[in-house]
């Protein structure tokens, strides 16, 4: 059955910056200025990636999600089809 889900937004989509302190990845819930749970140290080797819908995640986190889906993956935040922003 379907129930309308209230997604909780932690951020204003338009206001993303690299130096924001309190922004967290919607998948692992770690801060964007840190790294995903699979990486030990923050830095360039755990980059952020944006979708066409303007939602950002750690690259490693969104790849895990996309690879876990047998069909077309959807953005975890807004459920639109996930496309990497070109």
């Amino acid at each position, binding site marked *: *059955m379907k*129930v309308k*889900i209230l*997604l*909780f937004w932690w951020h204003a989509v338009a206001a993303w910056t690299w130096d924001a302190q309190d922004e967290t990845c919607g*998948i692992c819930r770690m801060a964007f200025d840190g790294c995903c*749970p699979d990486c030990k140290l923050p830095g360039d080797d755990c980059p952020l990636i944006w979708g066409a819908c303007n939602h950002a995640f750690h690259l490693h986190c969104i790849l*895990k*999600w996309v690879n876990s889906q047998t069909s077309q993956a959807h953005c975890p935040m807004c459920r639109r089809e996930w496309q990497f922003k070109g």
Partner: protein
Amino acid sequence: MVDFARVQKELQECSRDIERSGIKVVPKSDANLACLLGTIPGPIGTPYEGGTFQIDISLPDAYPFEPPKMQFTTKVWHPNISSQSGAICLDILKDQWSPALTLKTALLSVQALLSAPQPDDPQDAVVAQQYLRDYQTFVGTARYWTESFAKSSSIGIDEKVKRLVEMGFPEGRARSALETVGGDENLALETLCSG
């Protein structure tokens, strides 16, 4: 491997918010964060009001990339919840899961399901039939189950039956009268006297 750092965070966020949401999640043991127990209050204005419902949660290895497994351990009378096993029919716990959802938001959705049954997509066919054909009886039974299984005073129901039997009513009739009125002893007595 379950992302335990995230689970840890979720538990903290959830307990910080417990006053407002009434939603509780606790590990069954400190040794294993993959087995948890959730608690939701029955929504106001529904036959589940006043009840406290427990939900068994187990996290698959791939959590949060796969949905948590949730099942009622408190017996509940609802078209989308098995009255036998407590299994829940809810899309976000299946193909509509998103890793941006949390144990708390999932439990909030289960609570929303209690408020808005979907008999067209049932988990329990018997309950769904009753919901569609005889809504009043459905409400009575759902309330009776809340009264009997979801309240700390639930033990009281057998006491009530016993008192009615002592007044001279057959046990079967006493029990079904209580069931029809949602466990209210005085209303049950009225029903029995007028019947």
